[in-house]
């Protein structure tokens, strides 16, 4: 006979305001098998937990039902309390009287009746509970970092410095990401490359970091502590061991007119190229789409000039399999490109550019060597207009969110312009100035007050060309929406920061969730900002939402600590809520007939074939077997199994049936 204890929590007034907790406890006390039933103001408090512990000891309880809140927060609390009193923690169940009852119903008898039903279901279930023990799985102490921008670099270095191995993959030929493209950084105006490149070099030289550039994630299997990742190393058409990075090939390559991605199309590059002089690794790759040899079948000039014979035209992509215990995703973001802003003539007028393009113009390593010259004719613009919120905060454009970094970089751009073009006039159209951050507001005020940037609060309706000038039509909402028209020489759009192309596919490969804008979703917006809903996979930087450099770095270090914490143990404990295939006495062995439809239905590749052999080694039965390390306890296979041969521990057929019948039967 079961001896069950029922503990009804008032949750302050959260439950007791609408549910008669004393009545719930009293009614539950009369059920068969209930040995003790009580209500209390805060069951999760120390005295509340002691109530449970002492009842277990004194009454010799065999099962506990805590009728309180959602198990999400306090299931571990109450299970731990039970375990401390000597009861198996999986003999403890929680009835959710708060989220499922008191919060969603008004005060009344029916509400109390529902609370009683919820308790009864669990009382009946707990009679069929069995003691379970936690599962231990080993941890592979190597991290995979995807994306070699500042976030990925920081995460890799931080993890590597804790003494663990890191594999960093980057899809471009060099690490560095967007930060390497920036001229100066706000709010200090220090040179972006000067502070970034030492980190890039450190990554390349760190004994714990293995760097693969020009590489992408092909597929991922496994679970926390035990992932198996396939990485596609795209062919660089180069033997990296032989290449010395002398760069002769890049000077001789005849295909010289390819728009440079690094310079945002404002400069040109060759088909065999190093994206920028400080690239890590500083060795070229051949862009096969634009290479004369791959297009026409002849050229091979790079092969002829290469002093070490490092060019490999027949090199193929390599698929590499690695085992890792944790993953940090730092794949970054992208900005909205042409054709998204027809009203601003973007893509039609060469002198309407994006903020990232302006960064290249202002950069000493850029196509104009740091002089602000407009793309059309190379003239220095005398009047320049900056447009904030190009796409951002615009539900009509499908981007209702704030891209966050633009207010600050516009102030920086305007300031750089004023510093470089003496006597030039700059205008900023803005909706609000969002300069929350250390020294951020002061930075914007400096642009306005010291450098004389004209800030106009209002939006721009259109931009068109007239007599070689870009006419910017806007309104000043601080002057009663007075129309403003500026004849500009150049316009810079702070285009919205959006999720990377392919973010959705990557999320599906990784089995992580993402938001409607295809940014990866954190596990909790406040308390778990770097975790994903998939255990062992963490986020850093702008792949989660638009982020500036300090935030990306902070997130990366946060994610690195999570990884280091995970790697601090040799084994992980997991809840034993997993599927098991039944076993029976010979000659049946199991009711499983081995149709293996469960294998195709399992989203975690956790089911495998098991062969039962006789003493002569002949297979006498082929049946399904669940790998306890991989199973996440989702129950899809249980629903699929026609013979009902699979049960989820803690949620068995018998327990579920009992719960349903407890609800349907009269008491």
């Amino acid at each position, binding site marked *: 006979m079961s001896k069950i204890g029922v503990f009804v929590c008032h949750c302050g007034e959260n439950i007791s305001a609408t549910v008669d907790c004393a009545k719930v406890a009293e009614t539950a006390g009369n059920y068969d098998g209930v040995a003790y039933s009580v209500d209390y103001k805060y069951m999760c408090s120390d005295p509340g937990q002691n109530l449970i512990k002492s009842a277990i000891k004194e009454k010799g309880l065999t099962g506990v039902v805590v009728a309180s809140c959602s198990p999400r927060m306090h299931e571990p609390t109450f299970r731990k309390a039970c375990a401390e009193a000597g009861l198996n923690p999986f003999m403890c169940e929680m009835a959710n009287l708060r989220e499922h009852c008191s919060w969603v119903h008004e005060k009344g008898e029916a509400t109390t009746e529902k609370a009683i039903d919820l308790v009864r279901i669990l009382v009946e279930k707990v009679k069929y509970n069995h003691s379970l023990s936690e599962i231990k799985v080993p941890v592979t102490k190597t991290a995979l970092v995807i994306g070699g921008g500042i976030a990925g670099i920081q995460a890799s270095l931080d993890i590597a410095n804790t003494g663990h191995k890191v594999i960093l993959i980057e899809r471009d030929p060099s690490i560095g990401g967007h930060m390497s493209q920036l001229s100066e950084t706000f709010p200090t105006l220090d040179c972006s490359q000067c502070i970034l490149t030492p980190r890039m070099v450190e990554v390349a030289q760190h004994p714990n970091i293995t760097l693969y550039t020009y590489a992408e994630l092909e597929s991922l299997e496994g679970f926390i502590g035990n992932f198996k990742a396939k990485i596609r190393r795209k062919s660089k058409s180069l033997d990296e061991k032989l290449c010395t990075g002398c760069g002769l090939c890049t000077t001789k390559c005849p295909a010289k007119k390819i728009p440079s991605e690094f310079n945002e199309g404002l400069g040109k590059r060759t088909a065999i190229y190093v994206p920028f002089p400080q690239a890590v690794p500083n060795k070229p790759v051949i862009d096969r789409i634009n290479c004369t040899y791959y297009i026409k079948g002849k050229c091979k000039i790079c092969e002829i000039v290469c002093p070490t014979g490092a060019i490999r035209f027949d090199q193929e992509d390599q698929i590499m399999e690695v085992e890792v215990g944790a993953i940090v995703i730092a794949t970054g973001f992208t900005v909205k490109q042409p054709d998204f802003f027809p009203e601003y003539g973007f893509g039609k007028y060469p002198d309407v550019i994006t903020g990232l393009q302006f960064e290249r113009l202002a950069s000493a390593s850029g196509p104009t060597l740091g002089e602000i010259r407009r793309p059309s004719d190379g003239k220095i613009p005398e009047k320049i207009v900056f447009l904030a919120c190009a796409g951002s905060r615009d539900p009509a454009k499908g981007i209702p969110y704030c891209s966050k970094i633009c207010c600050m970089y516009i102030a920086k751009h305007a300031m750089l312009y004023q510093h470089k073009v003496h006597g030039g006039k700059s205008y900023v159209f803005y909706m609000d100035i969002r300069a929350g951050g250390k020294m951020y507001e002061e930075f914007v005020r400096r642009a306005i007050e010291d450098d004389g940037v004209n800030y106009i609060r209002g939006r721009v309706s259109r931009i068109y060309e007239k007599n070689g000038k870009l006419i910017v039509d806007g309104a000043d909402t601080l002057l009663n929406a007075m129309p403003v028209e500026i004849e500009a020489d150049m316009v810079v759009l702070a285009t919205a920061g959006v999720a990377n192309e392919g973010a*959705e596919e990557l999320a599906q490969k990784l089995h992580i969730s993402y938001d409607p804008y295809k940014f990866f979703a954190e596990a909790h917006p406040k308390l778990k900002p770097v975790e994903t809903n998939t255990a062992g996979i963490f986020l850093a930087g702008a792949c989660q939402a638009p982020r500036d450099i300090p935030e990306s770095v902070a997130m990366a270090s946060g994610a690195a600590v999570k990884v280091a914490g995970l790697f601090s143990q040799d084994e992980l404990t997991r809840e034993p809520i997993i599927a098991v295939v039944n076993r029976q006495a010979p000659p049946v062995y199991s009711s499983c*007939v081995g149709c*293996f*439809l*469960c294998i195709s239905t399992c989203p975690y590749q956790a089911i495998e074939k098991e062969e039962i052999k006789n003493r002569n080694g002949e297979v006498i039965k082929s049946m399904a077997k669940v790998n306890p390390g991989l199973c996440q306890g989702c129950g899809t296979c249980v629903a*699929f199994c*026609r013979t*009902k041969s699979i049960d989820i521990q803690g949620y068995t057929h018998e327990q579920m049936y009992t719960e349903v019948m407890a609800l349907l039967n009269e008491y």
Partner: protein
Amino acid sequence: MDDLIKRAKELIETSAVKVVIGYEQGTGNKTRALFVEKSEDADKLIFDSRCVQNLAAYVTKKEVKEKGKMAIAATLPVMRSIIQLASEFQVNDNNLLVLGITPESKLIEFGNLVEVETFVHQYTIEIDARNKEMLDKLAKMTQAERWKFWIDELAPCFKCYACRAACPMCYCHQCTVDFNQPQWIPVPSHELGNLEWHIMRAIHLTGRCIDCDACYNACPLSIPINLLTKKMLEDAKEHFGGYQPALKGDHLMSTYKPDDKENFIH
């Protein structure tokens, strides 16, 4: 079917197979399954239009399997069943030889199941006109009318499980209805019990049933239970792009594809 008799004799005599499954004359005007283990028994083999029983139901039976390698006289529905069974790992080339009988009543011996699959894929599964009409009629009914139709049709069922015994896909040692801890599907032949049993059967056969009508033919009360599986076949076609048994196919109901037309799953 002289070729069939001749070939069956050869197979038994050379011990290429231990048993040949085919049809023989039964009582009255009926045919029944014949298991040829001695070559002289092969003379009893017949094949004509009355031979509609799905013999594939026997290849998963322990008593038949135990004899050793089997050969089976297989009409098109039987061959389809065999391909589905092979995809569920119940038969393979090592334990089954298929003596195909084409819709034109010609004998083809297949070297392996891949050849059977190729042959089967020449034909699509089509619901016959009479049943199609019935399905359309049911679809046009109101929910209440349809409910009454099925309550009335299923009322006389006394759960003899002939439908289950005749179905080649019902090969589980422990059927859901035999699972009694807990007893999800009620065993008694009352309204609810009958309804749950037949709905469960239709669901378990979705994406697996090859529309051979063996269940209907086996029913002593001629309850049109095959309409349920036919409806599932139609729905599968509409929502999952059709069904054709395949050796290495993605199972219709258990496979998730990233390019699923429904995006809620992403």
